């Protein structure tokens, strides 16, 4: 272990003195910040969407009710009444973001309300205007001479609703779903934090790959192995690159945090210091250990990173597997894809972090099984990597074929 720490310290020192690593350390968070900043510029611009001028030609006296609805729903409309006739409006050239609504007996008799729009208009306008159908419908029913109670019953309509035993929690979840802010952000922050840690250390961990094959290319492996055992060297590299990954995380968060605090009013720190963060970060670290073992083993089979064969290339892609699952998992965090992804070693950490971030109720049994899958995989991969590393690191000038690797594993 003492020798592993020496190797780890060396790997850290060597990289921290390496210009390429230092540039990489700062370039990714800076790029991220630049994109975030540009995004926020566009974001604030789109918020200031044009106000739609809505002119209502009201012949049946529902204008005040309509105005109340618009106010309630917070639509960016400016309502006015107009006396212009339909033929005049149809003929005239309408200025941008303008709509004319003609509410007369036709609405009550045929159920049709003619709407005239300018060429440039909010694409959702025709959806928004459907809000008016309810008061008009009510008016139409009251014309039939029904009592207020009867009207309400007719208007209630029928809706299909999933049966939930505990009514209180249903209301709670409805409230939450409506206000996508508060509590969901509270879950999102630890998830994003763990995600950043996972990506940073796994990607920095990919450098292990290069480090192991560089050791062969530079032909120093044998000199080092005359002082330390192959497993010391392997462990040292894994620990070293783990610390380098954490340094990347610190730099990343050190640059991103102030920006987030400045541009948004999310109480990030408060959301972050919750017990959930601990589990999520542990998953991220386990994910690193698994991929580090794979990378260090495979790196030792290659003479040079640029000559990586198909097999090695495919292994390099493994950490990207969870990305394929982002769509289905976010769509349905309890769906089949999400559940299957939770049990596949390569996707388990990524999918688990995504699911735990999305889900209100954590599926503890699935979490425990998934963690067991990850832990067992780490043990197996470490053992295999050790065997591959021991032989591969001394095989200079040639890539190992999958057949050879299999032989080393069986040896």
């Amino acid at each position: 272990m003492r020798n592993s720490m020496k190797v780890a310290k060396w790997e850290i020192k060597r990289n921290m003195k390496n210009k390429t690593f230092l540039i990489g350390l700062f370039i990714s968070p800076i790029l991220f910040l630049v994109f975030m900043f540009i995004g926020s510029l566009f974001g604030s611009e789109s918020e200031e969407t044009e106000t739609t001028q809505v002119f209502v030609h009201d012949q049946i006296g529902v204008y005040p009710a309509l105005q109340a609805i618009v106010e309630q729903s917070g639509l960016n409309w400016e309502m006015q009444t107009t006396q212009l006739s339909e033929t005049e409006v149809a003929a005239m050239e309408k200025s941008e973001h303008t709509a004319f609504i003609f509410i007369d007996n036709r609405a009550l008799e045929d159920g049709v309300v003619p709407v005239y729009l300018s060429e440039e208009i909010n694409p959702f306008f025709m959806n928004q205007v459907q809000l008016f159908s309810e008061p008009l419908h009510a008016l139409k029913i009251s014309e039939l001479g029904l009592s207020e109670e009867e009207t309400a019953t007719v208007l209630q309509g029928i809706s299909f609703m999933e049966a939930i035993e505990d009514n209180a929690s249903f209301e709670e979840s409805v409230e939450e779903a409506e206000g996508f802010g508060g509590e969901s952000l509270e879950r999102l922050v630890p998830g994003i934090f763990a995600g950043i840690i996972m990506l940073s250390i796994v990607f920095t961990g990919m450098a292990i790959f290069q480090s192991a094959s560089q050791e062969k290319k530079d032909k120093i492996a044998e000199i080092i192995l005359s002082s330390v055992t192959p497993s010391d060297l392997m462990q040292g590299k894994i620990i070293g690159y783990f610390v380098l990954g954490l340094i990347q995380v610190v730099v990343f968060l050190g640059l991103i945090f102030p920006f987030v605090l400045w541009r948004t009013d999310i109480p990030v720190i408060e959301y972050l210091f919750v017990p959930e963060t601990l589990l999520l970060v542990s998953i991220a670290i386990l994910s690193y250990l698994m991929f580090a073992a794979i990378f260090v083993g495979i790196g030792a089979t290659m003479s040079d990173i640029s000559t990586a064969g198909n097999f090695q290339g495919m292994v390099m892609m493994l950490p990207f597997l969870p990305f394929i699952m982002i769509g289905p998992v976010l769509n349905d965090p309890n769906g089949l894809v999400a559940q299957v992804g939770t049990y596949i070693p390569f996707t388990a950490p990524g999918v688990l972090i995504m699911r735990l971030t999305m889900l209100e109720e954590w599926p503890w049994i699935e979490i425990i099984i998934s963690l067991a899958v990850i832990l067992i995989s780490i043990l197996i991969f470490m053992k295999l990597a050790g065997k591959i590393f021991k032989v591969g690191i001394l095989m200079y000038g040639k890539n190992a074929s999958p057949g050879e690797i299999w032989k080393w594993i069986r040896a």
Partner: protein
Amino acid sequence: MEKMLTIHGLEKSFKEKKVLKNISFEVHKGEIMAILGPNGAGKSTTIRNIMGIMYPDSGTITFHNYNGSDIPRNKIGYLPEERGLYKNVNVMDILLYLANLKDYPLDKAKERIMMYLKKFDLEGKEKVSVEELSKGMGQKVQFIGSIIHEPELLILDEPFSGLDPVSQELFKEEIRGLADNGTAILLSSHQMNLVEEMCDRLFMIQRGEKVIYGTLEDVKRKYANFKCTIHGENNIDELQGIPGVLRVEQKDEASILHLNNHVEPSAWLKNLPDHLVIHELKINRISLHEIFIDIATDKNLLKEEGVMYA
């Protein structure tokens, strides 16, 4: 002499092929022991087994009183045949790292690094990146790396390959100096003239088996008879008839007379007939180089001659 390293009955197979067969030898304190053999004979495999980079199928390796994986590797220095250094680090950092891996105190290591850099004409290069060094300079740094921790046993696999004569001389002196100070040295090399100049004892290996083992003197006495080279046109049959001559090789005008190992050169010279044409005459022992080539090419002529008259 105090035994430092004892190899006994070392065997190793790769797949079905046996690459080491019953290899046994010793290295003593303060001596230079050469391990010789053609490419692929098993020298580097033997060395890798000593260093614990590979494990033998059977046999024992004892260093002082330690066996196998208990051997304190920080007391051993190693310069492998296939060697290099990390490219993008500076000379001082890599040497300190190597010293640190051997548990050698860093302040002392720093002093020794500066001393050796000066000795090897690399003064002022401690902050230079390894990739900026020439091949020869790189080899010097690797050599310093293998001796920086004052090892009791130093294993050098082809230390002279790729060195210019000046650097070869520098390495030779340093290796000799270390041995004089008590370091046991196991040296593998193809440069027979250097081995002949430097080593006290030698172990020659061919196809994983011992062929020669002993002191340089013994080996020479056993294998290296005198030979007499005569420049001038002479009849081969007449030469063959001279007492003490085993066989004669003729090339152009030169004849090489291989003599048996009882021959005393001064007495034997009197046997030469008066009418021989002699433009030039040279009498010397067969060199290690010739013994090596004889064994490596499986001629075994010299060995037979040696044994026949031993």
